[in-house]
């Protein structure tokens, strides 16, 4: 029940934060198609990592394997110190309280209002008094950048950007230590997408949440990702800061980054 103190400690102060995600030798096959072939990925606390790669390189699948939704054919995934694929149901349930996931289409419960969506995990895991719960839900909505009047709306009444914000609000409801996002800015206009980037930076920097996102959005990469992991040929083909990634001699990476001519040059990442 009691989390270790590191959970809220500033990552900048600590010299080597512990690993929160440790995926080793992941092999995933769909029929004859090999998606991951001995893939390794380690992420430390406080990181903001973007996962990129061409279509079919298994970015979303990897995400689902890390959070325990899809079993890899072989390999191990350790999330927050728990081996996801050998853990007992109780241990798994305990880990699930410590991370949040935002699905690509939001996956809001369409029969519940936005406020009830955010309240669902809180009600499930804690017995909070109604007024505190209500206040906590409104804080989550405010943290996700939603206006107060969005609380009583149904998911079908929200715009695409607001659906994603509501999904974030639900994902951070339990004060997660790690937040997973599957293409958070897809389908959003650039202005909304940049606001979303700021939201992620804020969650990462100010709330100390480790963030792993799958994205195709170059602006997101340039703007927020401290570390970029490129998947290809069933493994990690490049891993590092934006400058390091762009220097890698790989045809896919080169064509990916040259698809945008107006990248700020020289690419420098603010630490």
């Amino acid at each position, binding site marked *: 029940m009691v989390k270790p103190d590191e959970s809220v400690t500033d990552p900048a102060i600590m010299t080597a934060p512990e690993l929160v995600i440790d995926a080793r030798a992941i092999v995933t096959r769909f029929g004859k198609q090999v998606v991951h072939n001995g893939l390794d990925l380690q992420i430390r606390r406080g990181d903001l990592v973007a996962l990129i790669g061409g279509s079919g390189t298994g970015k979303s699948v990897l995400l689902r394997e890390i959070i325990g939704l899809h079993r890899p054919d072989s390999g191990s995934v350790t999330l927050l110190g728990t081996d996801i694929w050998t853990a007992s149901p109780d241990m798994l349930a305990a880990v699930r309280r410590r991370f949040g996931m935002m699905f690509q289409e939001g996956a809001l419960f369409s029969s519940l209002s936005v406020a009830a969506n955010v309240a669902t995990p809180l009600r499930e895991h804690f017995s909070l008094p109604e007024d505190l719960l209500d206040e906590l839900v409104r804080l989550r909505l*405010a943290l996700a950048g939603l206006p*107060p009047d969005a609380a009583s709306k149904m998911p079908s009444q929200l715009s695409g950007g607001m659906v994603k914000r509501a999904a974030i609000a639900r994902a951070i409801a339990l004060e997660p230590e790690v937040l997973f996002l599957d293409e958070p800015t897809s389908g959003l206009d650039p202005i909304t997408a940049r606001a979303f980037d700021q939201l992620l930076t804020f969650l990462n920097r100010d709330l100390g949440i480790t963030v792993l996102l799958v994205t195709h959005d170059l602006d997101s990469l340039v703007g927020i990702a401290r570390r970029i992991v490129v998947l290809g040929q069933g493994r990690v083909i490049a891993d590092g800061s934006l400058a390091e990634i762009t220097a890698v001699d790989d045809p896919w990476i080169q064509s990916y980054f040259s698809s945008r001519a107006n990248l700020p040059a020289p690419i420098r990442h603010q630490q």
Partner: protein
Amino acid sequence: MPRPPHPSRSPQTSRNCSPETRPSRRATFDPHRAVAVKTPVEFCRIDSGDGATVLMLQGLWQIAQADRIAIALGKLGKTVGEVQSIDGKGLGAMDTAGALVLLSRLRAAGIDPGTIALVNFDPSHTRIVEVVRSRLPSPGPAQASQAFGLAARTGQIASNLGMTLLGHVDFLGRVVFELARALRQPALLRPREFMSQLGQTGVTAIPVVALVTFLIGVVFAYLLGLQAEQYGANVFVVDGTALGMTREFAPIIVAVIVAGRSGAAFTAQLGTMKLTEEIDAIRTLGLSADQVLVLPRIAALMITLPLLVFIGDVAGLLGAMVIGQTMLDITPHTFLDRLHTALDPKHVVIGLGKAPFFALVIGIIGCRMGISVERDTRSIGINTTSTVVQSIVAVIILDAIFAVIFQQLGW
């Protein structure tokens, strides 16, 4: 630290003691244990030394403790209103939930959470408090509760029902118009979709229709036979089942089965297409959704339902024949012989003639409920349920209307 020797633990007392008194002696006051139990529960205390009132925080201020923190803050009572600064030296951890409880309690006590000073806070804790402080939700319920009175609710339901029926009538008009157009220009009918629907609504429904009507025929003939036997009028069971099955039972039963099967399928199929914007895509491509999707379904159903009713007639009579053979001493030969004389073909025709109208109603309701699915997945389920209920009710109402009309016409 070694525990000081307790008088009751000395050997001679324990030897003299009876077993019953032992537990009570264990529960005697032990200062060390009392301290050990109390410490982690305390989250905050007020320190008013040096003339300044300071709220001292300690322990873990996280969401898992949020309810107990709220109670602990509540116990401080009115003194919270005099707090001038908050000391976070003893804080083990703080998350946004903990900060929220703290700040909203201060605000409730009349302190502006924006001005209160934070002392000895870890930088990460300060940041959490600052974040929550800047986004502190305003007090009071976020949503106005909408409580409607009985009259308002009744009115709303009646109005919704009226709008639904009006929509059905409107849709019926459109479909009949399209149907008429398709009859004049058969090219407008989409043969592939039409044939596929004939298969889905007709051929695959045969087993369930045959089984159910056969059993209805069995049950009906059996119950009728029990009565007829008392008067030695066994053979009249044939008259009764033939008339009942062909004119009423087969059409109604088959229509109800088809409403549950094909009507629900129409709504689910079209509803999913609406959700995935396929219907919009059809419109954008310059095609009419009514023509491409609705017409083949309704036309197919209007053709297959009478055929299914005919299968129902036959299966029902077969069921009656089995009962006649086994329980009522009516041989199949006698049964068929009696059937020829007793069953006026007009009853069969009336039964079959009602079927296309039932099909039209089921098709209209099924397709329209599918097309009027809203943007969320939940409404597919709601509309599918609604289709089945509406179709069955509509079929039975229609059948009652037919009964009255035929009665008046003397058929």
